[in-house]
């Protein structure tokens, strides 16, 4: 692919270093992988369509891959395509040094399947289905699902409005010691 350092200006590189949680090597590697995704297309395109992003080996089998693309995409067409800066945002939120706050914020947005700002019953059901897998024999029965959702709401909905908002979500997350280490994607 040639020397990528020359394609990413030094000023831009240090700016990215300041604004994200990524190190210089990680940014350069991200640039390299992003350019590879663009390589077969027209060079003038600045954003990569969602299907190409989903072909990355780190995201390929992740059940949340589509949600991740939608959350980090800043395109007006809401089609999940990512620019390079969106890609850096993604890697920064999933990096080793990102704070718990950032991670829980983005985790909340990823789990909010209908984008309404809270996790209601439908969101929770889709979340559990993503966790338990695609095949029929690993999914929960409807009875178990109903009980699970009502238990989750009982445990985490403090103001009893039937949904889990961001603060309640962050409160639940803060009780788990290994959330930070499991919410990581490294290229």
């Amino acid at each position: 692919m040639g020397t990528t350092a020359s394609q990413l200006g030094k000023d831009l590189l240090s700016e990215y270093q300041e604004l994200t949680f990524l190190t210089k090597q990680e940014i350069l590697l991200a640039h390299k992988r992003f350019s590879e995704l663009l390589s077969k297309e027209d060079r003038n395109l600045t954003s990569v369509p969602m299907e190409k992003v989903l072909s990355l080996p780190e995201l390929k089998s992740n059940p949340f891959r589509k949600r991740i693309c939608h959350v980090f995409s800043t395109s007006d067409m809401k089609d999940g395509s990512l620019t390079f800066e969106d890609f850096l945002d993604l890697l920064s939120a999933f990096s080793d040094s990102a704070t718990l706050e950032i991670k829980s914020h983005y985790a909340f947005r990823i789990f909010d399947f209908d984008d309404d700002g809270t996790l209601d019953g439908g969101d929770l059901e889709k979340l559990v289905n993503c966790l338990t897998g695609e095949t029929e024999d690993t999914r929960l029965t409807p009875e178990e699902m109903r009980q699970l959702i009502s238990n989750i709401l009982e445990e985490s909905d403090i103001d009893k409005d039937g949904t889990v908002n961001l603060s309640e979500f962050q409160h639940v997350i803060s009780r788990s010691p290994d959330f930070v280490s499991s919410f990581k994607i490294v290229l």
Partner: protein
Amino acid sequence: MEVLTTEGRDRLASHMSDVREQADERSEESMQTNLLVRNRWSAATLRVLSSMPSRSVGQQSRLEIISQCNIRSTQLRRYHRQTQDVSLSSRPSIRGYGIEADSEDVCEEETKRQELVNNLQSLSAGDRVRMLRATPLSLAEKTKLRKRVFSDKVGQSLLSSQVPCCSLLKRALYHILFGCLFIVSSLQLWQVALKRLGGRFGTGVLSYFLFIRTLLLFNVFLFLINGLFLVLPQAIHPPLHTPSSHRVTGLELFTGTGYLSNSVMFYGYYTNSTINTSCRPDEATAGTGCSTTSDPHMMAYNIPLAYFFTICITFFITGIVLVYSMSKSFGRSFRVFKSQGNLAIKVFCSWDFKVSKKMSVRLQSENITTQLKELLSEVKGGEEEKGRLSGMAVHLLAWSISLGSTFFCALGIHCFAKHMHLRRLEDVEGEVSLVHEARLLALPGVVSCGNLLLPGLFNLVSWMENFNSPIVRLYVSIFRNLLLKVSILGVLCYHWLGKIAAEPQQHGLQCWESFVGQELYRFLLVDFIFTVLYTVFGEFIWKLFSQGVLRRRRKPVFDIARNVLELIYGQTLTWLGVLFTPLLPAVQILKLLLLFHMKKSSLLVNCQASRKPWRASQMSTLFISLLCFPSFLGATVSVTYTIWTIKPSSGCGPFRNLPFMFHSGKQWAQELKSTNPKLAWLNWVHGCLVENPFFLFLMAGVFLMVIYVQTQILDGQRKIISLLQDQIENEGKDKKFLITRLQAVHEKRQYPLSPSSRPQPQGSEV
């Protein structure tokens, strides 16, 4: 639904809510929790709901994020005591009235942004960078903000030149630390195998294997310390012994006698003098080591002192590590804010995003499904569990059978041990032959048989009893097994320390410590052999039998309690034996390594996951506390008893001429006092700590007071948390009330003459 106009939607919504009203009047509880569910409300209400500050999280509500950032940057400023003006009215709930006009939003966003820029400018450079980084805005937004912040300052030169050296240093240190942590975590032993096992069999079985890993680490620590300070110096400067002729038969490896008894493995080999590092072997005189005429630059290594202190220090450090990990486990399982369960945490936090292979993702899904089912069944089981008076008689019978069998087993072992010693006395007088050596293995064999068969009996007995929840069954089973092991070990310790050590001549022993060390070595080995046999014959053949002959489709289930207690038993033997056999931890390490792989293969081939999954969440806490309390404490007590009250044998070992073992430390302290008066305070400290009990009472009193204060603090925190929870609930009720009022007012305005208009808002709490 998009085709309908706002009016049409409202009419439909009101009609639908009419129909629902009748149903809802019958089920008030569901109303309480679902009052803000979407499809009951009008469009205006929905707009209000969707722009509520607690729900504005997404990309389109930058304003909320910027307000939060403002709050935080102001707090940071106040903390650093910079400018005192507080110019933020960023309490979110007041903002709610501005929903109609979007242009107002944009203006407000602009003002907020300007405020944020001002705030950021007044922070220090490091804080600014950290603040910007931690804001959950998109990179494009952050770049714009940053440009505005820096546009007032001296331009682009800030970017590269003004990086102070201390922040570079900090960053470098940070990277080094991360590198070390990364190396340590990548050295995680058996990570892949553990993940595979956990995925297939659930957390209960996984905790057994994690426990093996923990024990391995303890033994590696023991082995390293002992090896470095005891074995190595003695091995490099071997004492002169009269070479005894022993026939080398393979049995020595199992019995520890023969040429092994005069090796660095056992207590008897160690000298009781100081080794000087520059002396040559031919200068040594028998039994006293090197000559003591020394020149001051030579290093003197006092073996008895080293022995005493090494053992004490390893026990001390192991004790501290155990207590620390036990308290950490307790801290994790019992929280101040004790919620009803772990389901929400499991659902939100358990997905590991690092996993990328398709097979591993599938395994992870399986794992999570199993855990969720476990948790759900426990919750359900907890709800159905009621006390039952019937079956009391069965329980009594079961307990009497278990306790009785334990007692008889202990008695039997006691008698057999006495008998074996008498036989051994006869053997010692006669010729040493292979059969006599093999007889040494009889007692360990009998004990291991008892250890194997009695838990099977306990299983049968508990199958007869009908327990409501699997957790109770597990605890009862663990308790019974524990009682068995404790009584067996108690009888054996009484034998060794009470009988043999007290009168070694009566048992025909010159070096009773080596003998006890050899006994422990034999016990460990025979225990391992029996475990191997049981795994091969018990699990494998039973599986063939049950599938072939009994034609059962299910494979047997892994018995966690029994296996864990066997591990603890083995570790107790190791700790008991460290004083007499410094290399015993090495044997235990080998044993654990082989055990891990054997059990893993046996599990994958012979067993299956339990069909009725139950939660094993506090298993690690239980295992560590079992390791700490009966096991480690018992070993410490017997080692302390040995060091304090038993006279060492006069013919062998590093403590040969001392009345008690701890006198080596005492002598050294007194020597220090006489040679180096400045260090006399050490002797005083030693006297205070060891001989004066008042000091210990004082320490215990201070300790108890600290615990009491901590419990009071925890209590207070709990009270505050419940008060705050009540307050949040009340706020939630206020919110519901206002929303329903809003809906009622809107409907009244919309349908003033319609018969379905309701003058009263439904479901409102007044």
